[in-house]
Structures are given as C-alpha cells and as structure tokens.
C-alpha cells in the first residue's frame, strides 16, 4: 500500500512548483491551493526528491493520509484507546460474572443442599453466567437429583446476582406398621399416673409394680377375645425409691490468678507435647490457642497464667449440698423433665478420712414405661391371636 503524506510547500508561484514537480515525475494524489501554500498529497518515497529539487521552497509535512493517518492517530492516542478497550473488556467480563448466589428458602438444609449442587454445576460466586438453556438444564438436573425434596425451582438472573427460588416438596409418607408392643415397667414403684394413647392399661393408680410388669398391653380384647393387636403407646409415671451411698472430699485446692501472664509456644504431635520456651511461672493454668499445622505437628500459643493454690476445707453443710448435687446429677433429676423429686432424706452422715460419707433416701416420680415388642401367633383352631411376648 502506498504511503502518502500531506505536505505543505510555501510558494507564491504555484504553477512553477507544479511544473517542477512534474519534471521530476512526482506522484501527487491531490493538490489543493491555499493563499501562500500548495498542499500536496504525495508519496513518502518522493519527499526526499521533492526537498532536493525544491531547495528554495520550505517543505513541511503536516499530516499523514489514509490508513496511515488512522494508524498515526491510534499511535498518538494509544493510551486512550487501550483504556477504552480495557474498560469495555472489563465491563463485558464483569457483566457476565456472578457475584452472589441468593437461595431464597427458610430451610437451612435445603439452602445448603442447593448451594452445593449449584456449585458442582458451576453456579458459584465469581463464575461466569450461563445461558437460559443451561440454567434450564441445571434446574432439571437438580430437580431429578432431589425428587423428594424439591417441588419447584426457579433461577432468576438479576444483574450480577442469581436468585434461586425453591419450593420444598412435603411428602406425606404413610406411617409404617410398627409391629406389636406392650408397655412394661423398667423399674419397680408405685404408679402415680397413666397416660395411654394406644393399647389397654393393665395397672391402676397407686398399684405397686415390679420391674418388667406389664403396664399397657397391645392386645385389644372384647369379652375375653383378642380382637386386634397394636403397638401400645403411653406414659406411666411411678414413685421410685432410691437408696444411695456416696462420699464427698472435704478438702480441696482453690486457685487464684495473680494477674501475671507469660506467653509460650507449644508444639504437639500425635504422641508428645513440647514447650519451646522454659516456663517462668511456677504455679500456672495454661490457655492454648491453635496457630497452624505443619505436616503432623500442631503449633499452639500458650498463655500461662500464674496462680496461687490454697488448700481449703468445706464445711459439712457445703459438702453435703455438693454431694446431693452429685447424686441428683447421677440420677439425671435436673436434666430429665420426666423426673421429679418427691422426697429426699439423709439417713446417715459421718466424716471419715477427710471425706463426708452419706446415705440418702430419694423418692422420685419418673416415667417407667418402656415399649417391648411381641409377635402374635394365630390359633389354628379358633383363629384367635395369642400374645407371644415375654411380659
């Protein structure tokens, strides 16, 4: 491609200049005539010859012509054009990027499940958006994978945010046959209340029952004939007696922090612990803060608090209270809503070898009914059923 330049020659004798240029066979694409100038579009290769032959005329390049002018402009304003292109690229990339996947549902499990499924199918924050068809395929895949959990699913693209709306499928599964069971006593006691939701209660209020006695039967009878068998359900509360012997130490050590604290580094592997620095505190309690793990070694920052330990002695009243608390915890009185203390009495109390030995009687009201399954056998002669349980 020919490279033309726009050249300005200062002259008042324009025709002479053109004749001279003609003499030296200069290729001039376009000539325009200005007041004191002749403006020519001439070949770059001819410029040297023009300057040589028109020594007395000032020749000045004023511009490029054609594609070279565009190229020159691009070069001059390269930074601007690069910025524009970069901005367009960044904008187009960002407009196709997901910054947030918003799963709209109250159930956290459904949200977590969908989040992991979408991530496995490539719908995650800072990933590229997909086409409508791809989202349709993703919806179908997730719905097929979770037929029992998802009723309806929609993916809505809102700018850079993906809103996933989901409707949970609630299945009303038929209740499975539980088999046949009786309610029997897990402990001996006096019945205080019976709440039967299925089956027939055998015992009444204030009845004394032994362990494994039948409380509620699963056999539904009419006129001494078993009509049906069910899994008995109900709650049977009874007063259960406990006699407990326990001891509690009267002496104990009390720790008090002095306010002095030192840092240390501890390295731990599967078998041993190594403290890097020598401990400068004699009596201490240590708080460990995990820092990092290298191969099989875990590195901890230790805060060593200096403490003063003092030996102290409980009074008998305090020791008794603590011993009773231990007994209550052991019997799960406070933890279980189905247990209630009816009566509590300390039968014996003595101090021996620095311990408080006590014997306590406790009467608890607690749920003693437990389900015990049984199989029914058909009587071949009569067609009646017979309970084959152990109760």
């Amino acid at each position, binding site marked *: 491609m020919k490279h033309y330049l726009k050249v300005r020659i200062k002259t008042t004798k324009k*025709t002479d200049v*053109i*004749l001279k*240029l*003609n003499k030296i*066979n*200069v*290729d*001039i*694409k*376009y*000539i325009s*005539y200005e007041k004191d100038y002749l403006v020519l579009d001439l070949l770059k290769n001819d410029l040297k010859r023009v300057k040589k032959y028109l020594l007395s005329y000032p020749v000045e390049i004023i511009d490029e012509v054609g594609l070279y002018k565009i190229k020159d402009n691009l070069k001059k304003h390269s930074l601007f054009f690069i910025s524009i292109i970069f901005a367009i690229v960044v904008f187009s990339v960002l407009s196709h990027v997901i910054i947030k996947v918003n799963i709209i549902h109250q159930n956290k499990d459904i949200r977590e499940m969908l989040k992991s499924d979408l991530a496995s199918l490539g719908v995650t924050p800072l990933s590229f958006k997909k086409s409508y068809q791809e989202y349709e395929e993703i919806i179908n895949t997730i719905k097929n994978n979770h037929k029992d959990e998802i009723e309806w699913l929609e993916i809505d693209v809102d700018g850079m945010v993906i809103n996933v709306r989901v409707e949970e499928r609630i299945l009303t599964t038929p209740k499975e046959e539980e088999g046949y069971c009786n309610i029997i006593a897990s402990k001996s006691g006096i019945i205080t209340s019976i709440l039967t939701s299925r089956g027939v209660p055998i015992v009444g209020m204030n009845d004394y029952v032994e362990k494994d006695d039948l409380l509620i039967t699963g056999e539904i009878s009419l006129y001494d004939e078993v009509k049906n068998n069910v899994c008995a359900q109900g709650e049977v509360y009874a007063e259960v007696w406990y006699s407990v012997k326990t001891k509690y130490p009267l002496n104990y050590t009390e720790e008090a922090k002095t306010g002095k604290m030192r840092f240390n580094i501890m390295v731990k592997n599967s078998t041993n612990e190594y403290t890097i620095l020598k401990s400068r505190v004699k009596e201490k309690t240590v708080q460990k803060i995990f820092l990092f793990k290298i191969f099989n070694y875990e590195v901890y920052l230790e805060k060593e608090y200096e403490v003063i330990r003092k030996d102290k002695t409980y009074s008998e009243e305090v020791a008794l209270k603590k011993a009773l608390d231990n007994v209550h915890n052991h019997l799960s009185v406070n933890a279980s809503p189905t247990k209630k203390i009816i009566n509590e009495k300390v039968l014996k109390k003595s101090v021996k070898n620095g311990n408080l030995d006590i014997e306590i009687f406790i009467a608890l009201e607690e749920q003693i009914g437990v389900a015990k399954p049984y199989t029914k056998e058909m009587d071949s002669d009569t067609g009646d059923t017979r309970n084959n349980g152990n109760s």
Partner: protein
Amino acid sequence: MRIIKNLQNFLLDQDYYIDIFNNCLHVYYYQELLTLTPTLISLKLKEFTLIIEGTDLIISSMDNHEILIKGIINNMRFER
C-alpha cells in the same frame, strides 16, 4: 478507476485517453506538462500537443502517466 483504465489499455492497447467531465479533464498517458497557467495548460501527448484554455485552471492530481485538470474549460484543441 485506474485499474479499469489499465485494463482498458491492456485490452484495447491505446496510446492515450482523454476524459471530459463537468469542469474536469482527465488525461491518461501524457508525456509532459508544457505550460501551466490559470488560463492555459498545454500537455504533450504522443502525436500532438493538447492545449486547454479556460479560467481558474488548476491541476488537482498528477503522476507521470495521468493528470487531472479542474477549472472552467472554454476551449480545447490539438496541435500537431
């Protein structure tokens, strides 16, 4: 335009062309520009000299084979 002219020249094997347009004269295969004034331009061609008379005559484009003259052309003649 030049491609067409070259093609025509190749096919017809002509020595020169002179095209007249509105206020414009295009001469192909001239040999020399003899005179150039706003009222007279003379061009040497192979067999004759082309003399163009008019007003405000200018050369708008030229190379060693062709030339484009613009202006009000009043008269054009050949001198052998």
